Structure formats: C-alpha cells, structure tokens
C-alpha cells in the first residue's frame, strides 16, 4: 500500500507539473463544447439554387416563391437554358438546378400532373441529399395545394390516403445538439483516458526511468495501478466538466440517473485505460504510441455512431462496431441522457464493456514484462 501511495503521489506530481498536457486536457473539453456543436451543424441552409424556367407562368412563379421562402435555398440566377445553368455547377457556384418545363401550368391543369427536373451537385453528398428531400417536400406540398385549388372536392376525398405525421420522441425539436453533445462527451473521455495512459507509460520507457523501476522491488501490479488510477480520475473529472458545460451552455439536463451514467463511465474507462495500457506495452517510443492510438481512435470515433448512425452502416462495419467501446459509450450516454434509460436498459452495453475491460487489462498485464 505504501508503495502504491508513493507511486500515485509521483504520478500526480508529474501530471500537475506538465502544464501543457494538463492545460490541453482542461481546454479541450471547453473548446470542443463551444465550437463543435455550433460549427458542426447538421441542418443544411443556404443551398445555392439556379432556376431554368421555360414556362414563365403564374404557377411556376408560385412554386419558386415557395422554394425560396422556405429559407433553405438561395436563388443564385435565373437562366434560360440548362447549359447556362450548368456552368454554375461547374464553377461550384450552385448546388442545385431546378428546371421547369414549358407548358408547366397548362399540363398541370389539363393532365393534373407535371414533372420538374432537379439536378444536384452531389460532391457534397449530405448537402445534396438533404437539399433533394427539402425540395421534394416543398414540391409535394405545392402539389397538394394546387390540387385542392383546382378541385375543392378532393379535400374530403383525400381522407382515404395515409397521412404520415412524424413525432420525434426524446428530442422533439430534432435538436441535433442533443445527440451530438453526449457523443462529444464520449469522445473526450476516450481521448483523455486512452492517449494519456498510453503515452505516460511509454514515456517511462523512452526516458529510461522504467529501468530504475524495474530493478526495484516495485510489483508489476502496483506500477500498473499507479498508472491507471490517476487517468481514471482525470477522465472522470473531464466527464464531469463536460456534463456541467452541456448544462450551462446547451441546457441539456440528463433525463436518467446520474449514478447510472457514472457507473457506466467508470467501467468504460477501465476498458479504455486498459486499451491505452495494451498499446503502451507494444511501443518503445511516444511517437509509436501516439500514432497507434491515433489509428484506433479515428476508427473508434468514426465508427462510433457519433456522426453517422451505426444502423445505417453496412453489415461488416456494424460487426466492427461490436468491438468498438466508443460505440457502446455513445449509445449508452444518449440512452441515459436523452431517454432516461434505467440500469436494466444499459445492462447489455455494460456487460460488453466489462468484458472488454477485463480482456484488455489482462492482455496488457500479461504483455507487460518486467524483464525485457
């Protein structure tokens, strides 16, 4: 116990003396919380639109005014031919071309249907996808109103059709910040816990201090514990800072029990720290550890369901996420914070992360050789 105490004292002294690392671990959550949710806006606005109107009728103008007044589109130009409009796309000045055919109004009235042509610049896939769905919605609403205007009787007949009214549970305003911020919390804890643990142990190897430790009677168990505990505490502190920030900056109040959240974080951190420990046992320099951690962290975070939902990933990617602790964490933290899930609800995730914690730490422990 006395050995562990002095080892811990040493670790904390070193952590608090490394002003740059300590500073960045404190600044990182604040910056990520202020900048990321504001900048990483999942709503697409200002889609640049070029219109080619061959009809010049009242109805075509009405459709255009519906589109521009939606707030999502910005009318760049009004051209006579598609080729002229296409130049805007080529120069990357426009995202979408809307072509209204000649006799739009006449055919709409006579035949009750009409086609419009939408061409999207799909280089930015998200923008194209969202823009197309916005345009589709606007056009179908317009369509409905036109029909009602033409045949008032249809208003009643329409009852037979299925009317879909979506209701967004747990996040009624579809505030993307609500789903993003718990994810950022997960990212932060993972980065701090994983990176710092891996780098710290490798630093001892690189500087050679581990030689002095290895010729001493310090037991492997104590040495490893003394490396894990400080970062476990540090990451928990950062998680708490993150929770407080999300409350004050974005008024996010966890719906679920904070104890459940912290219990999960505690186990999750064991897995992440174990992973950092494992990486450190395979590396001789901080540079190696940094790059290996970076490699895994990128995959973990990109496949963690923070930016794209896991459910829409291909099967093989979904299989990988089963081994991704970050995916479990982001899932659980969203469940508890937004849905108010109970302890029983997160049991499968907790179980998976516990298994990871045990496997990673045992593996790292076996691989950490005191005799090199």
């Amino acid at each position, binding site marked *: 116990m006395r050995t562990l105490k*002095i*080892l811990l004292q*040493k670790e904390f*002294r070193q952590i608090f003396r490394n002003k740059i690392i300590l500073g960045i671990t404190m600044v990182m959550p604040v910056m990520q919380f202020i900048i990321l949710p504001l900048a990483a806006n999942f709503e697409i606005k200002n889609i640049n639109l070029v219109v080619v109107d061959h009809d010049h009728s009242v109805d075509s103008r009405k459709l255009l005014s519906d589109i521009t007044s939606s707030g999502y589109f910005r009318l760049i130009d009004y051209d006579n031919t598609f080729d002229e409009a296409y130049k805007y796309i080529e120069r990357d000045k426009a995202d979408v071309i809307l072509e209204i055919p000649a006799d739009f109004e006449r055919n709409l009235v006579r035949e009750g249907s009409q086609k419009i042509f939408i061409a999207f610049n799909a280089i930015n896939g998200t923008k194209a996808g969202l823009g197309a769905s916005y345009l589709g919605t606007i056009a179908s609403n317009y369509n409905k109103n036109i029909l009602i205007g033409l045949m008032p009787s249809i208003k009643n007949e329409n009852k037979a059709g299925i009317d879909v009214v979506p209701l967004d549970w747990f996040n009624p305003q579809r505030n993307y910040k609500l789903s993003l911020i718990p994810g950022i919390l997960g990212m932060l804890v993972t980065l701090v816990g994983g990176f710092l643990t891996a780098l710290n142990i490798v630093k001892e190897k690189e*500087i050679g201090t581990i*030689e*002095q430790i290895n*010729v001493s009677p310090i037991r492997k168990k104590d040495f490893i514990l003394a490396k894990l505990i400080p970062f476990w505490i540090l990451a928990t502190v950062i998680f708490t800072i993150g929770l407080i920030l999300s409350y004050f900056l974005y008024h996010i109040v966890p719906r679920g029990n904070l104890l459940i959240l912290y219990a999960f974080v505690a186990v999750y951190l064991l897995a992440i720290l174990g992973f950092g420990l494992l990486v450190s046992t395979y590396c001789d320099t901080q540079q190696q550890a940094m790059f290996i951690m970076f490699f895994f962290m990128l995959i973990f975070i990109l496949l963690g369901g923070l930016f794209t939902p896991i459910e829409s990933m291909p099967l093989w990617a979904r299989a990988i996420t089963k081994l991704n602790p970050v995916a479990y964490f982001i899932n659980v933290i969203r469940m508890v914070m937004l849905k108010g899930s109970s302890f029983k609800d997160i049991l499968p995730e907790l179980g998976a992360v516990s298994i990871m914690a045990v496997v990673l730490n045992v593996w790292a422990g076996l691989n950490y050789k005191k*005799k090199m």
Partner: protein
Amino acid sequence: MVTANDLVKTYGKKNEVLAVDHVSFSVKEAEIFGLIGPDGAGKTSIFRMLTTLLLPDSGSASVQGFDVVKDYKAIRNTVGYMPGRFSLYQDLTVEENLDFFATVFETTVAENYDLIKDIYVQLEPFKKRRAGKLSGGMKQKLALCCALIHKPTVLFLDEPTTGVDPVSRKEFWEMLKRLQSQGITILVSTPYMDEADLCDRIALIQNGKILSIDTPENISAAYPDKLFAVKANKMSTLLKELAQFKNASATYSFGEYAHVATDSKQFEAGNAPVEFEKELEDYLADHGLENIEIKEIKASVEDCFIKFLK
C-alpha cells in the same frame, strides 16, 4: 560477491548479434571491479543481466549468492543500479526523486543518510530543483544517491562518468573509494582507460569477449613489448615515418606523444634500450623531424588494450 559463469546474450531475430560471448568472472566482496571496453563491447548487456533486467541466453550468474534468474526478487532488494543514461524523473525535484526511491525500497532518506551524506551535501543547495535542470555532474551524483539510498551491498554503475567533466569525474571516483571502504562491492563500467587504474581489478572486454582479467598493475606488467614515447615537431609526419620504421611492432598516437612498441626479445640479446632510442632518433632525424624526444615508458592499461586489439 558477484559471479558470472559462461554468460551468453544474443540479439536479433535469429540471434545473429552476439553481444556477450561466454563471459565468466567473479567479483570479491568490497572490491571495485571495472569492465573496461569500447562502446558496443557488451558492458551494458552484462550489467543488465546481473541486475535481472535481461535474461541470459545461457550460462548463469549470481549476486550475493542469489541466482539472477530464480532469485531476481531478492537481487532487486540488495543491488543498486545506475544505468548509463540518466534515468531519474526529470520533472521531479532532487528531494522528491530521493524520497521516491527510498520509499520504493521501503526505507527512508533519514535511515541511510550516513551513506549518502558526503554526496548529498553537494546536492543540498539544489534540493528544490528539478532533476532535469541539474548539470551533468550533479545528475550523476543524484543518480548515485538514488542507487545508494536503500543501502545496497552491490552497486552496479554503468558508465557513470561518461559525459562528466574531469573534476567531477575525479570526485566521483573518490566517492566510490569511500563507498568501498564501507564494504560495498562495486562493479563499474567505463570506456575511459585512465579510470581503469582506479579499480582493484579490471576485465578488458571487446566484442562481448573478455580479453583479460587482472589488477591494472598486473595487466600493465604483463605487457610483452618494450614501449617508447616519442615526440617531435610535426606529429602527423612523425606518425607517418614511425609506421615505416622497421624495428617497430606497433605505433600509435597517445595524447601529445606517439607510442612505439618494439619486440623485447632484441634486448635480451644484449641490445640496450638506449641503442634502440639512438637508432630511432637517427631514423627520424634523417627524415627531417626536429626537436625529437624519446623516452622509455611503462605500459598503461590503454597500451595493453591496444595490444590486445591487434
């Protein structure tokens, strides 16, 4: 007491690099034993095996009667090891480093203060300074303090004076002598031949092999040839001409002198060393050298080492 018995250590995937080649030696109680050899001779590998940091491929070794493989735990409690590279915590202060290592060995600084007092008084003014900010000599003193703080019976010092100024080196060796007088066995490695004379016994090592083990005096005395130190106005010309001199078995520069070795058998036949000196002087004078100075000298450990390498 330390004994090494036929130690072998190889590195590389196919064990192709033979770092320690069947090394055997034994060190007596309270002796300063020096491993003398150039960089890459295998000194550090031997130390790391003896301090249980490295497993030998074959052979055995024991420290204070404890086997380095089986009883490594006991060895870790009784030895002090100072690696060649400064390996204390640079971001901790002098005091904190010392306290840390004392606690790790389950003792306190106060308990063994006597042992480190002479060294620590010099460090005392800097005790609040971070170890990384100390000068080279001070770092070595701190490292020695930390290696001594648990009162080890055997001390392993891997190149403790490399990169340390001559004054600090001298002080360092005086400290080792004092520690020896307190009954501590000291194994020290060094690439500096002049430090060899300060050891009780030395082992000359080259390419993982021990060339010779004896007291520095005996090693010097066993030098088979006669040795002369030569000086002249132009060193480079002197060396060039000496290399052409027929009666020299070896010539090399040695500080401000050039050393010339010659077969000692010729002197048994009645030739006096004075005649050899005359012959050499005439030869050099013929080749345009001036201010020639020749004297017969005793071989140093370095001369022996050079002889061994040839």
